[in-house]
């Protein structure tokens, strides 16, 4: 017997535990390798470049951090954005991301003698952290089932497109590190509540603090952990371990989170944080009740319970309503409302609705982003229900909540993906536990041999074995196929959908060779090189961060969107007639106006397609002056061709977009390739308050210079009209009366 166990626990003379460890390390390394390398498509295909919009701000802030001191960074007042208001940048950002890359930069430079460019660190941060996310997911899933499930979910997490969409190389956004922290915090929380350990509770709190410093989505943890505790209490599963871990996490985590300037006193004032505070109070009462219960009779305890619950609920609700009414605690934020009422934003806050990632998710997106895991997800939840230990309750709550949120907002797919991977891991591993276990086949043969000896019931047993083998082979091959297909799908999606920097657009030459459209950088660099350093550039807010990051010029509005009125002002300037716009431009010292126009090459994300949002947002502030209806034709269509309304044709945006557009068509009617509409030559706009300063190669970016006030005090429209009619220069003698 002893030799037998020795044989089993050794392969080629190496203990099986060592092999297991070695395999695990190997798997981790390859999972991290797969996670990182599949995020490098954009670097290989384009270059090491910061993507999209928000990352440009984070990148700029990081550069500020590494060139100034940390305290300068926290006290950073940025007068180059939101002109003339400025922005208290240091106090209104989550510094975790910038500090992380700043620390990595310093450590590599000072300790390892690797003076890597800060841009490359920013670009590679998200892929590097995705490797860590896989490990954190492993830790979390291992707590749920075992390390087999952990490894599977780590692989899923590493390459699931739902997470890759926000963590490819160059997508230097808060989510890049936040998902890692989310998973790590949860893993430690599960460990803490399982063991009732103060150490793990503290680690959870520290990771929570890191998360708070990195992403506004920390509120998700702030609510999910209390909800877990609350549900456990309702299920009658209160124990001292739960009390210890929750109180440790809440006390340390809350105090730590208040050290972030942007968060400050929110944890005790904002309604988003009230659940955590409430559960903290509740768990004290429950602990007290638990103590009382152990001291008095059951009947007395029942009375005690009823009285205390009634008084607490009324006190709590009354306090909440009262404090909100008094304005001591902040009301819920707009994003929060739009979570519950999907049409809330559209009606009340067009600026939130105008962001494409705040739109509700279309159902194919779930399949697109998680492939076969989406249908394994309910199976995993079901398996959790079957076992239903404390930690399984957590996964169930997480899964249910996030499924709802992900349906409301596209960007919250991101928080759903990890729990899908965890559940998928549990389900697949359970399946493999059952079907990969071939020991019963051998035991079946033993039975067969036994029956052989006895000489009875030979046939049924063997046919059962065949069916067993068949079913195993069938299930295993189909799942091998699904796994294979999953990897294939993830790679395809990553490569085709999520690896475009959107600053640089891929294209093809007439001969079919690949090329890139680099209009954004062309125009931004022109601004940077050839305009005065203090020039103010007005553009729609989408391009604010990019202008700040690449063109290094002062902007009026940017992607921070903290001041709706200011954005509406820009919107009004864009959608009003030249006279009205000129007044706004001059009041805001605007030197250049930048617009995006895709009509020449057929780039659909241009300003005319976003124009309705500009109109809606400014209509929200000036309902008398801007009316959305005026931009639609009588038949209710949004048109730019000959049926375009007068208001449309007179708007500054329309004029700037199509200025000299017809010259491309030799003065004949032009064809807008995005909207597939013909722009008649009669609509060819004349500009009098701005003049063309620069247009990029493919016309995507057009920059106009705002004219100075006429030095004779004339209306600029008259001036340009006058210069048009009088080709020959007429020198008038000054009137005699002027000289007197």
């Amino acid at each position, binding site marked *: 017997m002893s030799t037998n166990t020795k044989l089993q626990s050794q392969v080629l003379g190496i203990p099986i535990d060592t092999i297991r460890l070695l395999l695990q390390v190997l798997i981790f390394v390859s999972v991290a390798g797969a996670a990182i390398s599949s995020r490098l498509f954009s670097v290989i295909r384009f*270059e*090491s*470049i910061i993507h999209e919009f928000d990352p440009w701000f984070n990148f700029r802030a990081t550069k500020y951090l590494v060139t100034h001191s940390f305290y300068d960074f926290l006290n950073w007042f940025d007068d180059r954005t939101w002109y003339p208001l400025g922005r208290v940048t240091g106090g209104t950002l989550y510094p975790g991301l910038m500090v992380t890359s700043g620390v990595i930069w310093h450590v590599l430079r000072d300790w390892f*003698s*690797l*003076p890597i460019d800060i841009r490359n660190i920013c670009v590679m941060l998200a892929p590097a952290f995705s490797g860590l996310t896989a490990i954190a997911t492993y830790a979390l899933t291992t707590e749920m089932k075992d390390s087999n499930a952990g490894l599977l979910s780590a692989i899923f997490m590493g390459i699931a497109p739902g997470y890759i969409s926000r963590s490819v190389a160059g997508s230097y956004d808060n989510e890049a590190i936040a998902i890692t922290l989310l998973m790590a915090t949860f893993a430690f929380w599960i460990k803490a509540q399982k063991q009732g350990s103060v150490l793990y509770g503290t680690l959870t709190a520290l990771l929570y603090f890191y998360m708070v410093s990195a992403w506004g989505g920390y509120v998700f943890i702030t609510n999910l952990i209390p909800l877990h505790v609350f549900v456990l209490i309702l299920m009658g599963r209160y124990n001292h371990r739960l009390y210890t871990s929750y109180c440790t996490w809440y006390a340390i985590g809350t105090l730590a989170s208040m050290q972030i300037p942007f968060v400050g006193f929110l944890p005790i004032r904002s309604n988003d944080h009230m659940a955590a505070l409430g559960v903290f109070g509740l768990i004290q009462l429950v602990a007290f009740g638990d103590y009382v219960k152990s001291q008095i009779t059951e009947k007395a305890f029942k009375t005690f319970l009823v009285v205390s619950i009634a008084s607490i609920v009324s006190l709590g609700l009354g306090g909440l309503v009262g404090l909100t009414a008094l304005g001591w605690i902040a009301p819920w934020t707009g994003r929060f409302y739009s979570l519950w009422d999907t049409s809330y934003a559209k009606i009340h806050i067009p600026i939130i609705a105008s962001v494409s990632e705040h739109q509700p998710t279309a159902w194919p997106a779930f399949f697109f982003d998680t492939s076969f895991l989406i249908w394994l997800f309910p199976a995993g939840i079901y398996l959790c229900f079957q076992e239903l230990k404390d930690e399984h309750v957590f996964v169930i709550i997480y899964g249910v909540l996030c499924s709802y949120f992900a349906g409301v907002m596209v960007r919250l797919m991101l928080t759903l993906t990890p729990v899908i991977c965890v559940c998928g891991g549990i389900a697949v591993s359970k399946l493999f536990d059952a079907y990969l276990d071939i020991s019963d086949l051998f035991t079946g043969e033993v039975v067969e041999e036994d029956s052989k000896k006895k000489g009875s019931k030979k046939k049924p047993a063997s046919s059962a074995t065949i069916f067993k083998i068949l079913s195993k082979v069938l299930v295993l091959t189909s799942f091998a196929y699904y796994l294979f297909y999953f990897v294939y799908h993830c790679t395809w999606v990553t490569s085709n959908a999520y690896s475009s920097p959107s600053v*640089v657009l891929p294209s093809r030459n007439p001969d079919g060779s690949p*090329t*890139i459209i*680099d209009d954004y*950088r*062309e125009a*931004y*660099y*022109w601004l*940077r*090189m*050839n305009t005065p350093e203090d020039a103010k550039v007005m553009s729609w807010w989408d391009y604010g961060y990019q202008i700040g990051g*690449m063109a290094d010029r002062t902007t009026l509005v940017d992607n921070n969107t903290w001041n709706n009125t200011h954005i509406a002002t820009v919107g009004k300037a864009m959608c009003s007639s030249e006279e009205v716009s000129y007044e706004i431009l001059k009041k805001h010292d605007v030197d250049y106006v930048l617009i995006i126009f895709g009509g020449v090459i057929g780039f659909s994300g241009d300003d005319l397609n976003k124009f309705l949002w500009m109109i809606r947002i400014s209509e929200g502030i000036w309902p008398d002056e801007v009316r959305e209806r005026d931009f639609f034709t009588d038949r209710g269509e949004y048109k730019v061709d000959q049926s375009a309304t007068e208001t449309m044709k007179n708007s500054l945006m329309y004029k700037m977009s199509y200025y*000299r557009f017809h*010259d*491309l068509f030799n003065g004949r009617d032009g064809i807008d390739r995005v909207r597939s509409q013909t722009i008649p030559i009669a609509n060819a706009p004349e500009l009098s308050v701005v*003049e*063309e*300063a*620069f*247009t*990029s*190669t493919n*016309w995507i970016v057009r920059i*106009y*210079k705002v004219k100075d006030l006429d030095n004779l005090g004339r209306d600029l429209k008259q001036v340009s009209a006058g210069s048009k009619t009088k080709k020959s220069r007429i020198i008038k003698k000054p009137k005699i009366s002027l000289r007197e």
Partner: protein
Amino acid sequence: MKWTSIVLIQAALWNLCMAVSALDIPASWVNEHYTRTIDLKKSYVRETVLVEAKNVDSSPISEYYFSLPDGFGGMGNVSVLSAILDEQVPLEFDKLENNVFKLKLPIPLATNSRVSLRIRYVYMDVFSPIPRQIGMGDIQTLLFKVNKFNYSPYPTDDLTVLVEGMNKAKEMDILDKPDSETAELDVPEIPTVSEDGSWRLGPVDNVKPWSLKPVGLLYDHNKPLAKVHLLERGIWLPSSDINEFQIEEYYEVYNDGAELNSGFSRVEWIKGNYETARNHWALSHFEFPSTSALEFDDYYFTDKVGMVTTHKKIKNFLLFEPRFPLFGGWKYNFTFGFNQKFDNHLKKLDDETYILKVPLLNSALDLTYSTVNLNFYLPENAEFVNVSSPIAFQSIETDFEKSYLDVSDGHKKVTVVYKNLFEDVSKVDVLVMYKYTKANYWWKVFKISGFVFIGLVSYYLLQLVDLSL
């Protein structure tokens, strides 16, 4: 009162000194034949002076004073000057003030003997576009101010001035005043013959010393005046036996020519087909000549927002288009990097002494440079010995620059600063001598591996600490 008079006397004395220093040239030569050839084809001026001079002094002389034909501050920044005796012997010279050079003949020349000198020089920043602002389709016209005479300290028997490389040139009177009191303004008429693209002034006889007649030449020059304000040319030398070194050049360029009279209109740019036109005054491409010795291996172009992909190799050129065409006054900067093979560039004198020979510039065509910092990054722990440059430099500095895995002070950085260069300087080589021993190399390897070892050992030791409660 007393003070002001002293100041006045001082000022007068100072003026006198200035005048004397300019005048203090003995009239010991007569220029028998003096030919100036001015070449205006490029964005700088290349001038060649041929002089046949006769010693009219009573004793043998070994110095010939040569003054640039300026006299009214019209020559901008002078780049390189070279003087050759009898078509073969390069002459040494001292630069005195007011653009006067003292050429030193190898042996004193006897009375009544003759020498023939060829003096070549290049100067830049002398053109002004007239009018300053033009339309995109217009032709750029430049004003070039020139002295019709030779402004020599010696009398000249026979003077000819040739101007080449102009289109549709017109002469204009200008109001510039001579900046020296010695200038001779009473000059004879000089006959002018103009053929297509060139002018011939003279010959004119008996020109007095310091003769000056500034005129303006207005001519069509439909090419950009590309100017590099600053070039940081960095040459990174490897510490091991790799047969390549890296070159990275950072350019800050602008177009010194005419400005656009309106905003930049893409329609006009497309319609005029100026992108591909070789003769347009907007600076839309740089042509870096490539030879078999200079093949630009693994080259790249970047600027401060990332890669610039508009470049291609065609035949003997590397063509680079900036992100946008540069009109007058427009600026751009970019970084150009590539690898170059060591063949014929590095010579090992002995076990530890190396001599590196590299071209001073790697210039695109028709470029002039205000400041060039030539940076040599020697391997870490190398010892810099000397730099030898055929062209005078402004200053030389050494510093350190930390690069990847530099665990001591970093690469030794030797910066040689030059002013006012032009494209042809790329034919000139600079020599750098430095010492780098095998011990230095192994010391670095040992140090890096030591750090890695310490790191691993401390990790191991940390693992031994038992933190469990």
